[in-house]
């Protein structure tokens, strides 16, 4: 479904991605794990058109992707960005409506809205509050909810569990599972590598702008080097 070939991205003189290639197949959950600053967000931003790669190639369903973010969204790629980026000046409700910006089917939109509210009751409570004054975690819920309102087929998620309370972290992973069940394909970037590997089908390990490892999620999770540097105490305790 998505093919990334030899992608290079630089910020001025700093090279953040140095020839990344990866592939996401229809219906998969693929996760990318890597340390702080490995280039995970850079990769997602380059896919969704916010960064211009210095070289390399991204194809979606066999066709090279346009370089304009809104057209990429139209093609069916939906990005839940790092740092949430909710519309602070709009109400929660309007934020969700913006999620459905490209859709016209009123009934389906209403149904999706219902679902978002039932997944995140807190958002329903705060429907009229302007998004900028929500707590950090509430904003994260909103960003997820907004992504659910689009009908993108490929969802790029950048650290969706960031700043969420433990209970909600679990919810988020349940939601990822649900979205997946709806037939969507997911490319997930997570610090919580343990959980990410648990839901994913396949995984890539990104280190300093390069893919250093790829494979089945379960295999990666079992890899001692990975366990050592990404899974921390959790896995050690569990292992």
């Amino acid at each position, binding site marked *: 479904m998505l093919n990334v070939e*030899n992608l290079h991205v630089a910020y001025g*003189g700093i090279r953040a991605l*140095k020839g990344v*290639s990866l592939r996401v197949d229809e219906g998969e959950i693929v996760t990318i794990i890597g340390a702080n600053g490995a280039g995970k967000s850079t990769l997602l931003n380059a896919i969704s058109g916010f960064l211009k790669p210095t070289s390399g190639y991204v194809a979606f369903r066999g066709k090279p992707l346009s370089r304009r973010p809104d057209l990429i969204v139209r093609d069916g790629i939906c990005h839940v960005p790092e740092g949430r980026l909710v519309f602070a000046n709009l109400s929660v409700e309007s934020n969700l409506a913006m999620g459905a910006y490209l859709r016209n089917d009123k009934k389906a939109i209403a149904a999706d809205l219902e679902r978002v509210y039932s997944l995140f009751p807190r958002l329903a409570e705060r429907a009229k509050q302007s998004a900028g004054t929500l707590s950090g975690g509430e904003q994260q819920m909103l960003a997820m909810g907004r992504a659910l309102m689009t009908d993108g087929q490929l969802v790029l998620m950048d650290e969706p569990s960031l700043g969420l309370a433990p209970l909600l972290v679990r919810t988020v992973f349940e939601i990822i599972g649900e979205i997946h069940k709806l037939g969507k394909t997911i490319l997930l970037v997570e610090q919580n590598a343990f959980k990410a590997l648990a839901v994913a089908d396949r995984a890539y390990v990104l280190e300093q702008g*390069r*893919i*250093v*490892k790829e494979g089945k999620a379960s295999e990666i999770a079992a890899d001692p080097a990975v366990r050592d540097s990404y899974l921390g105490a959790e896995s050690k305790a569990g292992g």
Partner: protein
Amino acid sequence: MDAYIEGILMLSGINLIAVLGLSLLTGFAGLFSFGHAGFMAIGAYSAAICTKLLGLPFFAGIAAAAAVAAGVSWLIGRATLKLKGDYFCIATLGFGEAIRLILDNFQGLGGARGWPGIPPHTTLLNILILDVIGVVLLANLVRSRHGRNMIAVREEELAAKVAGIDTFRYKMLALVISAAYAGVAGALLGHYMTFIQPKMFSMVKSTELTIIVIFGGLGSISGSVLGAVVLTFLPELLRAVDKWRLVVYGLAVIGIMIGRPRGLMGGFELTPKSIRAHFARRREERAIKAGQAAEDEAFSGGEDGKGGL
């Protein structure tokens, strides 16, 4: 020296002093003023009162100009510095116009008809001396804790506050100092022109100063110097194109904003040390590039760039 070139140099030098002050306010403390010509007016009239009416020496006039402009700016600051961004802009704009209106109505100092016969004390030499003093003091200020605190206010006010910086006080400090600079520039201008008129200190003048600051590069003192000289000379160079002069000037301003995103010297200071550092960095960059190429090669020589470890 040709009287014409000398005149333009003198004006550049005078503009430079006002620009330095504004550069502190806008470039370093991040406040945008549309009323700086008003402080120049205050300086020009205060200095003229000292030299022409009271018969004091020129340096006393300059000192008075700085002091009165600073004092007035302090009052203005008390009322308006709590305002944010564009709201503060409007307040300064209104202030600049208000000063002009008061001077227009004040017949004792000539009103709108202006005040002629101010002694011609301004010379290229005293301008140059004040320019040097102005640059040195400003450079010393911005590279001290006080200057850094102003920059912090510009960068992220809330973070500055919780880092223990009294943001109001530092905004005020920047405003007062920049007003004092403007006052000195006004004093010099008045004694250069030998005539002052409220019209000379219109919003257009304030705008010109701001354009110079940004043209030169925000937060760069050497940029301000360069900007003041270039933009004082530019309209004169364009005299050849007659009434198309300002058309070209307008386009040039847009061109610089688009073409040089950070102004002539944005964020870069022209000091011997920085020049050396610049070349060192260039060398280093080249070395890094070479290193990167080698690294890439080594990597792709591996196993198609992935799966190795």
